[in-house]
C-alpha cells in the first residue's frame, strides 16, 4: 500500500463505517459499537504507519482528490500538524468509541450513536487533512453538524434539543467568519491551497490580513468556546458523556487551536491579529476557571475547565508560542478525555446523577474511577511530572517570553484557580459522607423534572469495557509531557522541525523572570489552590458537616457566578430576543397580510372566475352543438365577408 492509498483509506474508513451503520446498524445491535470502534482504530493504525513518512521528508504525504480549475484543487495533506491531530482524533477517539460500547450498552439507539460518532471522526479528519481552505471549511461545517446530532442525541429531552440548537447556531455564526475569510483569501491570492496562500501571504496588505485573521478567529472562537461565544459548551454537556469526552474536550473544540496554528504564517504577519487572539484566549482562560469554581454538575465543571484550558492553548498560539499551544492540545486531549470518561463511570454507576452534591464518599465504592480522576486532575492542575505541568508551563512562560506579562500573570493565577476547582470536585465527589439520599432542598438543589431514559434493562456491560480505555489513557496522561525533555532539541521541537519556522515571532522579549522562577510561581499557586480546596472540602472538619456546608455554599453563590457573568442573558438580549421579536412581527404583519393574503386572493380570483364560467356548462348537448355552429358560422362569415383568402 502506498502512502497515498493509506491516507485515502484512513480518511474514508470512518465515512464507510458511518454509512454502514446507518444502513445496517440496527441489525447489528451491540456489534454496531464494535464495527464503529474498529474502523476508527484501523484509521489510527494507518495514521501511525505514516508517521515515518511525515517526519522523514519535507511536505509530508500529499494525496490529490479533484481539481476544478487552476487554483481550485482539493487534496489531502498529512504534515506534522495534521498528523498530530489525526493521531489524537483516531487514537483517543478510538478508545472513546470502545468506552462508549459500555456506556451506551443499554441504549436502544446504539447503532445511530455510533453512526454519528463515525461521521464525526470523518468530518474532523476532513477538517485537519484538507490541503486547502475550502476543504477545511467543509470539515469545519460537518463537525458542527456532527456535534449537533450528538448533543441532541437524547432528543426526547427538551434541554438536549435546546442545547444542540444553541451549539449549532453559534457555530454557524463562526462558520460565516471563516467563509468570508476564505472568500477574501481566494480573491486575493487566486488559489485555495494552503501552500499557495501562504506563499503569497507577504504580498497582502496589512489591513486585508487583519480582516482575514478576524474572520478566521471568529470561527475559531465559536468552535473553541472562546469568550463571548462560549455559552454553548456548558450546555453541550446534555449529550452522552463519551460525546463530551470526544467532541467537547479532546478534538472538535480544539479545532480553533488547529486553525490558528495552521494559519500561523498569516497570523504571525499581523501583530494586531495576534494580540486579539492572545487576549481573547487569556480572557477565556480566566473566565472559564472562575466559572468552574461555581459549578455543581460534574460535567459542567469539566466543561468550564475545558473552556479554560482551550483558553490557554489559544493564548499560546496567539502570543506566537505555537509549539507550546499545540503541546497543551496534545496533553489536554489525554487528561481531559480521561477526566470525562472517569466522570462517565461515576454517572453511569449512579444512574445519571451528575450533581456532585448528591455524590460524596465514592472513593470507597469506585476506587478505579477515583484513581482515574486523580491522575487526570493532577495532570490538568500542572502537578510536577504530570503531562499538564510541561505544556501549561510552556504556554505561561511563552507568554512572558513573547512580551505579554499581563497574560503571563493571568496564566499563573488561572493555574491556581484550576487546582482549586478541580480538587474541590475531587474532594466533594469522592470524600465525606455519601449524600445520594439527602433531600435536594438541604443541598440547595433546585427542583427539576427529567424524563426517563429509553433504556433496555436486563444486561449490564462488562466493567472492563469502560475501564480499559481509561486505564490506557492513564499512561499518556502522566507521560505525554515528557516529549518536551531536552529543551530545543526535545522530540517535540524536532517533530515539528520547520513547521512553525515562519510562524515563530522573531526576536523574543527579555523575560522579566527566568523560566525556573516562572515554574516555581505556577507551582506555588497550584499548591495554594490544592490547600484551599483541601481546607474547604477535604479536611476532616469540612467532611463532617459536608451537607450543611454545601447547602450554605449553594445558597450563598454570588448571582454573577450563578448566571455565568450574564453572558447568556447578554446574548439573549442582544441577538436572540430582537430576532424573536422581529420574527413575531413578521408573523403578525408580513406573513398574514402580504404573503398569505396574496395566496388567498389568487384562490378567490380563481373561484370567482369559475363561478362565472360554470354557468356555460349547462349539461345540454344541444347547447354545445349550437355554440359550435355559431362559431363555425362566424368563421365562415369572417372569411366570406372580409376576404381572408387571397
Amino acid at each position, binding site marked *: 500500500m502506498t502512502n497515498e492509498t493509506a491516507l485515502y483509506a484512513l480518511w474514508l474508513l470512518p465515512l464507510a463505517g458511518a454509512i454502514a451503520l446507518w444502513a445496517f446498524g440496527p441489525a447489528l445491535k451491540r456489534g454496531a459499537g464494535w464495527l464503529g470502534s474498529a474502523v476508527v482504530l484501523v484509521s489510527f493504525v494507518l495514521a501511525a504507519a505514516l508517521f515515518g513518512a511525515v517526519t522523514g521528508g519535507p511536505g509530508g504525504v500529499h494525496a490529490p482528490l479533484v481539481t476544478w480549475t487552476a487554483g481550485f484543487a482539493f487534496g489531502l495533506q498529512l504534515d506534522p500538524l495534521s498528523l498530530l491531530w489525526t493521531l489524537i482524533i483516531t487514537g483517543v477517539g478510538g478508545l472513546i468509541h470502545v468506552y462508549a460500547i459500555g456506556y451506551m450498552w443499554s441504549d436502544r439507539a446504539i447503532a445511530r450513536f455510533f453512526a454519528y460518532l463515525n461521521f464525526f471522526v470523518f468530518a474532523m479528519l476532513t477538517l485537519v487533512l484538507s490541503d486547502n481552505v475550502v476543504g477545511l471549511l467543509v470539515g469545519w461545517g460537518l463537525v458542527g453538524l456532527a456535534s449537533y446530532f450528538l448533543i441532541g442525541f437524547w432528543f426526547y429531552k427538551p434541554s438536549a434539543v435546546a442545547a444542540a440548537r444553541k451549539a449549532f447556531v453559534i457555530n454557524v455564526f463562526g462558520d460565516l467568519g471563516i467563509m468570508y475569510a476564505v472568500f477574501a483569501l481566494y480573491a486575493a491570492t487566486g488559489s485555495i491551497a494552503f501552500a499557495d496562500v501562504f506563499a503569497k501571504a507577504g504580498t497582502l496588505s496589512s489591513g486585508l490580513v487583519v480582516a482575514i485573521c478576524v474572520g478566521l478567529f471568529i470561527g475559531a472562537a465559536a468552535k473553541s468556546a472562546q469568550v463571548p461565544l462560549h455559552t454553548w459548551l456548558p450546555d453541550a454537556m446534555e449529550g452522552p458523556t463519551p460525546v463530551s469526552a470526544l467532541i467537547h474536550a479532546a478534538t472538535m473544540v480544539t479545532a480553533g487551536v488547529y486553525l490558528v496554528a495552521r494559519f500561523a504564517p498569516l497570523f504571525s504577519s499581523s501583530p494586531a491579529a495576534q494580540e486579539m487572539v492572545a487576549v481573547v484566549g487569556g480572557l477565556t482562560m480566566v473566565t472559564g476557571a472562575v466559572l468552574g469554581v461555581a459549578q455543581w454538575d460534574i460535567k459542567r465543571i469539566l466543561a468550564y475547565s475545558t473552556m479554560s484550558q482551550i483558553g490557554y492553548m489559544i493564548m499560546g498560539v496567539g502570543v506566537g508560542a505555537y509549539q507550546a499551544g499545540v503541546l497543551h492540545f496534545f496533553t489536554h486531549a489525554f487528561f481531559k478525555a480521561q477526566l470525562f470518561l472517569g466522570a462517565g463511570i461515576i454517572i453511569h454507576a449512579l444512574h445519571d446523577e451528575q450533581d456532585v452534591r448528591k455524590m460524596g464518599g465514592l472513593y470507597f465504592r469506585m476506587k478505579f474511577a477515583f484513581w482515574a480522576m486523580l491522575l487526570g486532575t493532577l495532570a490538568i492542575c500542572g502537578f510536577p511530572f504530570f503531562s499538564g505541568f510541561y505544556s501549561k508551563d510552556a504556554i505561561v512562560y511563552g507568554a512572558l517570553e513573547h512580551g505579554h506579562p499581563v497574560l503571563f500573570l493571568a496564566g499563573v493565577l488561572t493555574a491556581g484557580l484550576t487546582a482549586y476547582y478541580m480538587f474541590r470536585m475531587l474532594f466533594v465527589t469522592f470524600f465525606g459522607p455519601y449524600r445520594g439520599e439527602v433531600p435536594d432542598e438541604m443541598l440547595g438543589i433546585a427542583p427539576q423534572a427529567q424524563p426517563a431514559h429509553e433504556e433496555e434493562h436486563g444486561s449490564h456491560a462488562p466493567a472492563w469495557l469502560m475501564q480499559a480505555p481509561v486505564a490506557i489513557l492513564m499512561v499518556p496522561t502522566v507521560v505525554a509531557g515528557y516529549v518536551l525533555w531536552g529543551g530545543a532539541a526535545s522530540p517535540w521541537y524536532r517533530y515539528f522541525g520547520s513547521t512553525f519556522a515562519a510562524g515563530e515571532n522573531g526576536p523574543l522579549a527579555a523575560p522579566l523572570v527566568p523560566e525556573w522562577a516562572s515554574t516555581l510561581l505556577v507551582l506555588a499557586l497550584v499548591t495554594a489552590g490544592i490547600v484551599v480546596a483541601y481546607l474547604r472540602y477535604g479536611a476532616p472538619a469540612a467532611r463532617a458537616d459536608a451537607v450543611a456546608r454545601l447547602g450554605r455554599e449553594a445558597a450563598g453563590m454570588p448571582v454573577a457566578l450563578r448566571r455565568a457573568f450574564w453572558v447568556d442573558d447578554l446574548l439573549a438580549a442582544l441577538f436572540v430576543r430582537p430576532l424573536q421579536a422581529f420574527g413575531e412581527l413578521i408573523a403578525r404583519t408580513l406573513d398574514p397580510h402580504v404573503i398569505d393574503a396574496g395566496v388567498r386572493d389568487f384562490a378567490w380570483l380563481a373561484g370567482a372566475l369559475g363561478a362565472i*364560467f360554470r354557468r356555460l*356548462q349547462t349539461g*345540454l348537448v*344541444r347547447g354545445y*352543438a349550437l355554440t359550435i*355552429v355559431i362559431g363555425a358560422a362566424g368563421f365562415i362569415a369572417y372569411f366570406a365577408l372580409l376576404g381572408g383568402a387571397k
Partner: protein
Amino acid sequence: MSVDLANYVALSGVMFFVGVAGVIVRRNPLIMLMAIELMFNAANLALVAFARAWVANAGHVFVFLVITVAAAEAAIGLAIVVAVFRRAKNVDVDEVASMHG
C-alpha cells in the same frame, strides 16, 4: 356525361345542415349519432367532388381517413350510449346532465 361541381357542393351543404339540425333538435343519442354520420359524409362528398374536379388524389385519401375515424367514433359513441342507458334507464340526452356546472 358529367355533373356540375356546384351540384355536388350544394348537395353536400344540404346534407351537412340536415345533420347539424339533427344534432341540435333531436334528444335521442342514437339519432344524434346518425346525424353526425350524415355530417361526416357530407364532408366526404365535398372532398371527393373537389378531388375529382381538380385531380388531386389527397382528397380521396382523406375520405378513407374520415370513414375510419367515423367508424371508431360510432363504436365509442354507441358504447357510451349503452353505458349511460344502463345507469340512467333512459336515452334522453337532456336528462343525462349530472355533470353540469
